[in-house]
């Protein structure tokens, strides 16, 4: 299992300069990728712009959207932005897509909220075709790897039909393991060769004041889930032991790439995470 780190693009109060610095530091290791989250109606950075900036100051890490709410963007625009980012970064983009769960984002984008699943399917098919044709963007034989997220039965079928892997939304390793089984079952049912790429994510904060700030950020960010936000806040990873257990649980459940997201935009948090991974014997590139 590879371990990546999130950019703090969804954390309010993050300066542009910090995002750039964060990306530079992460590129030095031991992280395999930089992840971004997507939310329109929230104080946050556009995920593809943030990754484009990161692309310019990094050379090694992969750049992953986990996920981008793809329906908020017209398919042609998204195809072009993603292909541009992929070309700019020398083929380091991994494009994770999902329908998201917040109606406000669709309202803010002026996009219909209904039949999102069906439209995501159409988008998945169209993206590959547009990339191959190369009429809109730098032509690519295959385009960036596509991941699909979501927990509905339809999500797993969509993933196995059209994408290269699955990206899980978060939770304890047990929840991931169940979703991973569904992804593998669907993959196998479509007789796709090999295994689906399985991606997952978690949130961290270290140090008393950061933990408090991180929890209140999660409560706010996930306020739309109602009382569930409290559970997400309670699952915040705050100690080396918690990270060790989380990493191990995900690895045992067959995760291929785990992206750990900061909840506090502070470079010290990134340094602490790197130290902890080093302590777990995962400090090498």
């Amino acid at each position, binding site marked *: 299992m590879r371990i990546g780190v999130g950019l703090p693009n969804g954390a309010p109060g993050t300066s542009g300069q910090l995002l750039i610095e964060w990306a530079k530091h992460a590129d030095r290791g031991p992280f395999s990728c930089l992840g971004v989250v997507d939310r329109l109606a929230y104080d946050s950075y556009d995920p593809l712009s943030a990754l484009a900036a990161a692309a310019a100051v990094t050379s090694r890490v992969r750049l992953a959207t986990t996920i981008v709410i793809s329906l908020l963007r017209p398919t042609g625009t998204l195809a072009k932005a993603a292909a541009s980012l992929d070309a700019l970064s020398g083929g380091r983009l991994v494009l994770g897509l999902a329908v998201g769960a917040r109606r406000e984002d669709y309202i803010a984008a002026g996009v219909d909220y209904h039949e999102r699943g069906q439209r995501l*399917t159409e988008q998945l098919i169209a993206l590959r*075709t547009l990339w191959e044709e190369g009429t809109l963007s730098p032509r690519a034989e295959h385009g960036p790897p596509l991941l699909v997220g979501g927990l509905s039965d339809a999500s*797993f079928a969509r993933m*196995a039909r059209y994408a290269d892997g699955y990206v899980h939304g978060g939770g304890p390793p047990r929840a991931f393991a169940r979703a991973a089984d569904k992804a*593998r*079952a669907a993959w*196998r*049912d479509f007789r*796709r060769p090999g295994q689906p790429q399985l991606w997952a994510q978690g949130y961290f904060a270290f140090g008393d004041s950061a933990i408090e700030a991180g929890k209140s950020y999660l409560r706010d960010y996930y306020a739309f889930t109602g009382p569930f936000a409290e*559970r997400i806040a309670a699952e915040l990873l705050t100690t080396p032991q918690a990270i060790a257990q989380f990493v191990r649980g995900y690895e045992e459940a067959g995760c291929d790439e785990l992206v750990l997201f900061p909840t506090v935009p502070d470079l010290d948090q990134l340094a602490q995470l790197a130290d902890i991974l080093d302590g777990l014997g995962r400090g090498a590139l």
Partner: protein
Amino acid sequence: MKIVILGGGPAGLYAGLLIKKINPAHDITILERNAADVTYGWGVVFSDRTLASFQRADARSYEQITNYFVIWDAIDTCYRDERIRCGGHVIASISRKRLLNILQERCRELGVTMRFGCDIADLSQLGAHGDDNNYDLLIAADGINSIVRRAYADHFQPAIAQGKARYIWLGTNKVLDSFTFIFRENEHGFFQVHAYPFSGNASTFIVECDEETWLNAGLDKASEAESIAYCERLFARDLQGASLFSNNSKWISFPTLKTKNWHYGRIVLLGDAVHTAHFSIGSGTKLAMEDAIALAAALEQHDLLEDALNAYELERKPVVETLQRAARESQSYFETLKRHANLEPVPFTFHLLTRSGRITYDDLKLRDVRFGDMVDRWYAQQAAPYATKWGNLDMPFQTTFAPPPMFSPFMLRSLFLPNRVVQSTIIEGTPPAVHVPGITLQEFKARRTGFGRFAWPFCAGAGLVIFEHVAIADNGRITPNDATLSTEEQAETWKLALRSLAPISMAKCGIELNHAGRRGATRHRSEGVDRPLREGAWTLLSASALPYLPGSQVPKAMERDDMERVRNDFVRAARYAEQAGFDLLQLNCAHGYLLASFLSPLTNQRSDEYGGSLENRLRFPLEVFEAVRAAWPEAKPLSVALAASDCVKGGFTVEEAILVASVLKEHGCDLITVQVGQTTPEGEPAYGRGFLTAFSDRIRNEAGIPTLVGGYLTSSDEANTILAAGRADLCMMEQVSR
């Protein structure tokens, strides 16, 4: 805090005493409609895990409760006059009345006010009993018909689903030493009993049947006494002279309640007022009392009421939902029990014990080795007829050893499979060339390329390996990489490949013949499925001229001569399969490929004799089947990979699949390989471990034909559980990567 609890059942009383115990400063009043000593229902059951939480919550009441416990560890299944015992399930029960007395006494000790005979029909009445509406917290533990939940239904958003079966909650003086399931069939239908002891001389006795049976028996019009008399007659052999008793008992259907929000302002719902779970998993009282424990703890831990109620809901809701899912499985099992009435007592019992999916073969073996061994022996005995094939067995058949079910042999016609494990594999192009005598070392090495990969499934221990998706002609391929079996040369290559496997494998070898239909001419599966070829596409055929995806090629709706050609291609491929030496032949009639496109009303919109009714939709697949059956050797089995459901509204259903399987069986089909979905891109099977098992269960047991089931099975425990319960005869196992 001033707390009013509505309802003096186990949930209300337990919440009252626990909250008071933690903080005696709270002023708590419980309002109960009935008198203190009036109660409905007989006994309640608890598992050992629940008991541990009672002990932590309040040791005093725990001790009193356990003093009156009846504890047993066996579940008996009485079916077709056989009684099969499975031990190791620690369950305890107590009379509901005794439980209430203990909790009331404890409430009194702690200073909780209890008012009995307060019939609150309207929330405004809460003031009439001296407690003005000024409570700080109202705990609604007033049961399934909660007036509080109803008064604020907009906020709580409850949903009730009525069960399909009818049941009546009776008591008996029959002495039982186990949880006992009794199954009886009479001229009216199929009845089952859930019975368990709750005191030294009395047992709960719940009688259940489906609605049709209930009406047939005239129980809708029967009085209480007539109902009891009917049940006493029906279960006379089980009661052995004991009587049944009523306690205001009526035939009802089980209401499953789910509530979206569990609290609103200063009101919180508890127990049956907020959720119910079918009685067959015996969890109603347990859940109610666990709710009380969680609520009391939350009130202690949080200063703000809102936080406490949030914490309570957050803790309990997922637990309850998990149990409700299991209860739903169990309930639907009992509602449709007739489907399994043809199972022999041993698999019937095993099926019953593993119905909810929470208990597996390995679990039962751990709980009761003797039971597990009996299951293995029964299963192994099923091989007895294979021996008698070669001559009379002049002694009772005895197995010297009984392996777990997955290692039991199985026979289809003259094909003897050494075990129940099947692996499937797809090869591209033709089988790799293999060693034949008389070639140079260099040639040998060149030909051997890829042979390891080809041979690997045969070395993994499966009894049968099936090569899937072999096209009957080049224009029947899914992708250009698919293997085809349409020429003499291909048949000879397969023959060499199969021969070279013989020394390394005991596995028998099957081949699945397919025509891709409208899903043909697509790119390699590594690029995703159903993506049309950019160049080199061939003309597609299907039942109707409907493209698979909006951008896919529009297939040609097959005409009579197309049908003849395709049927002849299938027959030709079957003859070549025989020439190559395959042991089993399978026709693909699933996943929206050509034959399946005729079956589904979503893909077959023909107006001729090949479209419309199920009989018409089955006509062409059946013509192909019959032609292939005639061409394929009599001694060798012929299987069909059948779509068991489109998993789309308005599509082909499992009920239709059962009919199709029955017809195929009549025409000489030996095995159904169960598949679902992919008929159209909208299909949404509930992917996950064992997602095909329920479909296989129905087809096998309702059409009476052996089935092969996959659905991402990776462990021997999954396979043994499916096989021992008679949910399938063969299991397709997947490799686990990593």
